[in-house]
């Protein structure tokens, strides 16, 4: 049992001849919310894909709970205990909300426990309860985000990865989602999230990294980062001073 739950160590990623990550190193401590901040084309979403095994890095290692998961197929990484809330939510549009939640528990086989978790999700996400029989594709963006989070939690992950969870949501839902992310951490699930909106993300995060064109340019406790004047320049992609 290490203190660091997820570690990315010296990751170098390429899309064809273009290098996306330069020696990327990130540590996510157990029980915390860690956010990765950065503007467009900074390599944030690619970082998420590396963790989930959707892309392989050219070099470097990803370690989860002391176990190397670099280059494993995605389903095995999920089974190792990582949950995913993908960018733009990616629910199964023609399945009902209930079916979407149960798909989240696909990698599990403990029926009684799944049923218990299902009931727990409905108390945690009351809005989801009202929509159970509805097709997921017909929900609003905010509702879909709730379902996506509940779906990821149904897998009982130790780490949950969220790719821009507040993107495209109304301000009302943004606050609700941030609140829920805090609640998830308080339940003992470690959270790694990727965000463009630094000020929002740092409000709830414990620790932050700032990514700029594939390099970590700044990192530290969220409370310090939020006061750092460089953060604005960095995450807006401003010029170096």
């Amino acid at each position, binding site marked *: 049992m290490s203190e660091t739950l997820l570690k990315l160590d010296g990751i170098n990623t390429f899309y064809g001849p273009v290098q996306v990550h330069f020696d990327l190193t990130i540590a996510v401590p157990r029980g915390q919310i860690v956010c990765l901040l950065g503007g467009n084309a900074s390599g944030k979403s690619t970082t998420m894909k590396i963790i989930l095994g959707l892309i392989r890095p050219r070099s470097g290692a990803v370690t989860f709970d002391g176990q190397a998961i670099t280059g494993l197929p995605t*389903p095995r990484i*999920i089974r190792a205990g990582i949950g995913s809330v993908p960018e733009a939510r990616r629910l*199964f*549009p023609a399945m009902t909300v209930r079916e979407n939640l149960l798909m989240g528990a696909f990698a599990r086989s403990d029926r009684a426990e799944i049923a218990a978790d299902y009931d727990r999700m409905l108390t945690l996400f009351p809005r989801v309860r009202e929509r159970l029989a509805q097709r997921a594709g017909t929900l609003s963006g905010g509702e879909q985000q709730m379902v996506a989070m509940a779906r990821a939690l149904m*897998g009982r992950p130790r780490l949950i990865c969220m790719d821009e969870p507040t993107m495209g949501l109304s301000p009302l839902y943004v606050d609700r989602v941030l609140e829920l992310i805090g609640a998830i951490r308080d339940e003992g699930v470690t959270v790694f999230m990727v965000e463009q909106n630094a000020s929002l993300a740092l409000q709830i995060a414990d620790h932050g990294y700032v990514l700029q064109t594939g390099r970590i340019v700044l990192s530290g406790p969220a409370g310090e980062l939020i006061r750092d004047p460089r953060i604005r320049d960095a995450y807006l992609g401003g010029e170096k001073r």
Partner: protein
Amino acid sequence: MSSWFDYTVNGLIIGNIYALLAVGLALIFGVSHLINFAHGSVYTVGAYVGWAAIRYLHTPLPATMLIVVAVCAGLGIAIERLGLRPLQGSARIAPLLATIGISFVLDQGLNLIFTPDPRALSSGLPNWRWQVGGGTIGIMDLLIGAIGIASAGVLFGFLRFSKLGWAVRATAQDRDAARQMGVDTDRVNRTVFAIASGLGGLSGMLVGMYYNHIDTAMSFNATLKGVVAQVIGGMGNVPGAIFGSLLLGLTESYGVALFGSSYRNLFAFVLLLAVLVLRPNGLFASARQTPPEPMTGTFIAPSRPVRVPAWALWAGFVAAALLPLVPDIAYILQTLTNGWLYAMLALSLTLVAGTVGQVSLGHAALLAIGGYASALLALDLGVPVPFAVLAAGFITAVVGTALVFPAFRLRGHYISIATLGIGEIVGLVILNWEGLTRGPIGVAGIPPLEAGGWELDSPRATYWVTLVVMAVLGLMQARLLRGHLGRTFRAIREDDIAARTYGISLNRYKGMAFAYGGFAAGISGGITAHMYSYINHETFTSQISVLALTMVILGGLGNLTGAIIGAVALISLPEMFRFAAEYRMLIYGFTLLLLIRFRPQGVLGTV
């Protein structure tokens, strides 16, 4: 068989057979967005496995069915593993072509093992029939109906209640998201191929027993019918596929009742085209537009073409032109003449499929139109041969473009299906329009090639004529593509929506491409008709369409030199190895598979 009741029963039975095929195609399209052109071959394998089990193992019917399902499911898994899994992440056209290659290999394999002679496949069931209403129902009707309903029920239960079934549905809706839920999508693919192939094989065995007849040529038709049924119900829609199959079966059966059995397929393909044009998403979807498949641009593998210098092309032409001076090579000249004729077809197809990106699977129909036009002009109207051939080019340009025009708004897979259907319709119209085409008898006594009183029917003369015509067509096409027109064509291929936003009229440019392509193919067909002196509705079969596509891919899509080289290579290689003549389709199939796997951009690269 006389009453409407009998025709209805027959339609439903055939519909059930189609449903067993179409459901599998729909499942496969659902999870992997692939039209499995090898599906009909699996169906034929099913029929032959059933025959062999009964013949050699003397199995009773239930055991035969189990064996057929098991063998075909295994075959499906092998197809997925060997033919398709290695192609993950390559251009979208690759797996489609791979299934075509696999179907060639399977069909030829059956031909070699079982010979092309038809065989009887008896169900071994007693020949009971019951009087119902105004007609009768036989035991085979009941069996097929029961199997159809039972399979649908089992499939429904599997998809709705089993964990793997959930995984299949989730993968069909969002493959990446399914992987992020821990779904092993490779396993889903394998499962789907096993189910689809098991049902497909069962379908082949049942149809063999229904007609008490099987042969190795039944694959292509089965694939077509399954695809048609699936398009009617909406691609990838499983319940839709069942409904589409029953509708197709009934339409065919009533069509046969009204007009006779040679109209069966005509009804099927007219129904296909009507659905594609009016409701391309199937009868159950409300949208009239086809979904924007992420296909344009990625449908064809991009590459850097090999540049062949102009002097090398001229040297090649001169060498080819001097070849007839070598004595005693009449046989080689004949083969190469055939090669030049195919090269004209390949030039035409490489323009349409490669440069403009509309992968046509019905190109042989253009040869047929050209061939019949030239033959009938010369025979019935006494037009001199050179003018008849030229007129055939123009007629093919006009008729071919007009026929494809309704399909211009389709994309990707849909354009391939539509052109396949149009190709079949042309053949069937030729067969049935006896007043003009002489129907099944064909056109005989077509005057040989001549120009201004000069007989051109010696091997040398036809060789030169075809070589020069081909070279002229190739040069014209190269000139056409060099400037603004070529750029516009390629823009449409890469991104038709972007092209439209720049004010490019898609219809006009696609029309121009098909017209020029029709002209070249029409000339080729016309010359062929005069060379053969006899043609019928089977002279230009859909196998030629697929062969032409293989040539074009071999050379590199859109690559003119590549098209010519591809045509000459595929025509002359099987001739060089005489012993290999009966393995011809096997060679084509393996060529296609190896190419797609190791050099998807073709020998000379796509342009």
